[in-house]
C-alpha cells in the first residue's frame, strides 16, 4: 500500500509520457483527422490508381474545411515530414481556397500550384491517410516508400541514420572497453589497498562523479582544444611543432576521451564492490597449488570479477548509447551520436514522430542487448553494488 504513491508517480511522470512519445513513432493523425474526405478516397482506391474527379473534389473540400478550421498547418507539417518543403504548399493553397474555388477542381488546384500534380505529394498523402504508419521507422533506417509502395533505400547522400546507429554502437563498445581497461586496475587497487589509502582513492574516483557533467565536459574542452593545455605542453616540450597542433576535440576523439572519463566511475564502482568480496585466500590458494601469479589472476581472480564487469559494462554501454550532452559539446560533426539526432528532431525540426521512432529503435536494441546478456551471462550474476 505504501508504495502506491510511488507507483502513481512513476506512472504519471514516466510510463505515460514515454508511452505517448513512443506512440507518435507509429501513430500520427495530423493528416487523416483533418482531411477525412481524401483519406476516405485513398482507403477505397488501391495504390497506383490515378486521382479521379472525386479525389480532386474531396481534396478541395478537405483543404477548404481544414483552412477554415485553421488546422491546415498541422496537415502541411505531416506531409512535410515525408516530402520536405511542402508545408507552404498546403498553407498557401488553403488561403487561396478560402477565397473561393470552383469545379473542375483538378484544374483549379493545379492553377493555384502545379505541385498538386506531383505524384510524390499524392503518394505522401496516401501514406499519411492512415494514422498508423511505419514510415517513421523506415526513415529511421534510411528507407522510404517508393511511389509504387515498395520499400527502397533513400538516396545515398541522405543515408545518415544507419551510419549514426552503427557509430553509436561502435563508439559505445569502444568506450566500454576503454573504461574496463582503465577502470579494472583502479578498482583492484581500491579493493586491496589499506583502508586509509583506498578511502583517499575512492574520493578521487567519486569527486569527478559528483561534479556537474557540463563542468567536466567543458574542462575537457579547455584541455584538449588546439590552443589548449595539452597541445601547449606538447609544443612546449617540443614533441610537436607549433603548426602541427593535434585536433583532439570537436571530432570522434573528443567524444571518446570525454565520455570514457565521464563514464569511468560506472565501471569502477560495480567492479570494486565485487572485488571487495573476493577473499584474498582464493589467489593464495591458487598460488599454493602451483599457479604463477598471472595464472592465478587469469583463472581464479578474473572469473570471479565477471559479475561486476558485466554490470559495469552493461551500465557504461547503455549510458553511452544514449549519451547526448557530451557528444553535442565536444563531438564536432564526426563525434555526433544518434541521440543528438533525436534531440535535433525534438527541438529543431519538431518532427517528434521521427524522434520517437529513432528513440524506440535505440530502446529496442538496448533491450535486445540486455536479453543477449541475460542469455550469455545471466542477469542473476549482475552485481551493481
Amino acid at each position, binding site marked *: 500500500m505504501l508504495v502506491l504513491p510511488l507507483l502513481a508517480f512513476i506512472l504519471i511522470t514516466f510510463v505515460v509520457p514515454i508511452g505517448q512519445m513512443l506512440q507518435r513513432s507509429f501513430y500520427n493523425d495530423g493528416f487523416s483527422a483533418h482531411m477525412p474526405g481524401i483519406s476516405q478516397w485513398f482507403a477505397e482506391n488501391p495504390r497506383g490508381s490515378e486521382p479521379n474527379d472525386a479525389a480532386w473534389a474531396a481534396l478541395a473540400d478537405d483543404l477548404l474545411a481544414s483552412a477554415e478550421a485553421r488546422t491546415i498547418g498541422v496537415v502541411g507539417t505531416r506531409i512535410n515530414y515525408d516530402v520536405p518543403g511542402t508545408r507552404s504548399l498546403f498553407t498557401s493553397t488553403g488561403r487561396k481556397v478560402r477565397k473561393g474555388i470552383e469545379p473542375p477542381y483538378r484544374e483549379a488546384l493545379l492553377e493555384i500550384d502545379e505541385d498538386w500534380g506531383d505524384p510524390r505529394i499524392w503518394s505522401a498523402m496516401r501514406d499519411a491517410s492512415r494514422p498508423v504508419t511505419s514510415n517513421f521507422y523506415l526513415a529511421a533506417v534510411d528507407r522510404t516508400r517508393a511511389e509504387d509502395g515498395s520499400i527502397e533505400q533513400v538516396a545515398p547522400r541522405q543515408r545518415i541514420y544507419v551510419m549514426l546507429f552503427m557509430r553509436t554502437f561502435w563508439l559505445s563498445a569502444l568506450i566500454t572497453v576503454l573504461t574496463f581497461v582503465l577502470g579494472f586496475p583502479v578498482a583492484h587497487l581500491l579493493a586491496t589497498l589499506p583502508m586509509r589509502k583506498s578511502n583517499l582513492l575512492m574520493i578521487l574516483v567519486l569527486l569527478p562523479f559528483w561534479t556537474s557533467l557540463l563542468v567536466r565536459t567543458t574542462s575537457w574542452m579547455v584541455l584538449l582544444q588546439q590552443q589548449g593545455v595539452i597541445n601547449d605542453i606538447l609544443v612546449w616540450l617540443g614533441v610537436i611543432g607549433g603548426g602541427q597542433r593535434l585536433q583532439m576535440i570537436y571530432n570522434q576523439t573528443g567524444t571518446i576521451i570525454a565520455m570514457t572519463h565521464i563514464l569511468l566511475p560506472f565501471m569502477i564502482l560495480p567492479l570494486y564492490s565485487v572485488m571487495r568480496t573476493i577473499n584474498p585466500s*582464493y589467489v*593464495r590458494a591458487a598460488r*599454493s597449488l*602451483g599457479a*604463477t601469479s598471472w595464472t592465478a589472476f587469469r583463472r581464479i581472480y578474473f572469473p570471479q570479477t*565477471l559479475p561486476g564487469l558485466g554490470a559495469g559494462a552493461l551500465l557504461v554501454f547503455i549510458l553511452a548509447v544514449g549519451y547526448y550532452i557530451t557528444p553535442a559539446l565536444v563531438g564536432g560533426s564526426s563525434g555526433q551520436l544518434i541521440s543528438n539526432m533525436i534531440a535535433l528532431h525534438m527541438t529543431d525540426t519538431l518532427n517528434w514522430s521521427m524522434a520517437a521512432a529513432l528513440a524506440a529503435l535505440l530502446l529496442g536494441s538496448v533491450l535486445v542487448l540486455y536479453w543477449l546478456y541475460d542469455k550469455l551471462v545471466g542477469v542473476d550474476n549482475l552485481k551493481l553494488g
Partner: protein
Amino acid sequence: MLDNTSGDAFVAFEHVQKSYDGQTLVVKDLNLSIAKGEFVTMLGPSGSGKTTCLMMLAGFETATHGEIRLDGRPINQVPPHKRGIGMVFQNYALFPHMTVGENLSFPLEVRGMGKAEREARVKRSLGMVQMGAFANRRPAQLSGGQQQRIALARALVFDPHLVLMDEPLGALDKQLREHMQFEIKHLHEELGITVVYVTHDQTEALTMSDRIAVFNDGRIQQLATPNQLYEQPENSFVAGFIGENNALPGIIEALEGDKAVVKLADGGLIDATAVNIRERGQKTTVSIRPERVEFKPEMMPPGAHSIEAEVLEVVYMGDILRTRLLVAGSDDFIMKCRNTIGQTRLESGQKIRIGWHPQDARALDPV
C-alpha cells in the same frame, strides 16, 4: 622427542624474525625443525605469530630475518607456486566458479599434466575423502564438512610432501570437527606426509599432533609432545593455556635440587617441583592440575605439606565432581574428584585440607 638441530630436518626455521612495520616483531627468533612425516601443530592465542609462521612457510610472507629451509634447501626466495606445499585454508578457499572436479584438477593443470592422468588423480583423491560422487557439484552446493574434505583433497591431489593447514576445522560444529580430526590424522598416517597444523583449539592440538609448538608473543613457549606439554609445562603461559590449571602465587621458601617449598600469600606452605626458578626468595607461580589435587590424607605422600581450603561450590558433572575451593585467598581453585562409589561427598562451607604429590605441582615463573 626430536632434537633441535636442523641438519636433517625436513622443515627448519632458523632464527626467523618477522616484522610488518619495521618496529614491532610479530615473530621473534623462531627456531623450529620438523622431521619428515611428523604432525606438528602450532598452537597459540590469536596474534601470537603462529599464522604468520605458517604464511612464511607457504611463501605468502617473507621473513624479515633468518632462514627457512625445506628439505635442506633455503626457500626464502622461492615464490609460493614453486614450493610444492599443499595448503588447506581456514575458509577452504574452494574456487566458487569451478566444480569440485575442476578445483582438484587445477593444481594438476598448472603443472601441465595430461587429461587422462588428471582425471585418474582427481578420482583417486576424491575417493580418499569419500567424496567420489561430488565431482560435478559446485562448492556452494556442499555442506561445510564436505567443503572441508574437498579442500583437503585439493591440497593432497598433487602429492605434496608437506601440507599446511590453517585452522581448517574452525568453521565446523563440534561433532563434525572431532570426526574430521580423526580423518585428517588417519590420512596423515596413511600417506606419510608431513603436516604443519595451526589452531587455537588446544583439544584439537592434543588429539592430533606428534608435537605441539605453543606460541605466545611471537615466540615458541614450549615445543613438546602432547603429554609432556600437559603434564610438564615449562612456564606459566603453557600451564595456563593447555588444559585447566590452578595457579597459586607465592615465594620460594626452600630450594633443594628441583624440590621446592613455596610459601603462599596466606603463609601456608606447599611442595612443588622447581622448573624455571633458580633461587630462594624468588617469586613464583605454582601450577597444579585440578585432577591431581587430593583432599584425603591417605592419598597424599607421607611428609607432604597440606593447606587449608574451604569448599565454595560443588558442581555435579557426571563423571566428575567439580569442586571450587577458597585456597590462600583465591576463590577459583578447582579440584576435580572422580565420581566413584566410595567418593566422599563434600558440602559447600566445609573446611578441608588439600595436598598433592610434589611432582604434580610445578613452580614456574610468576605471572
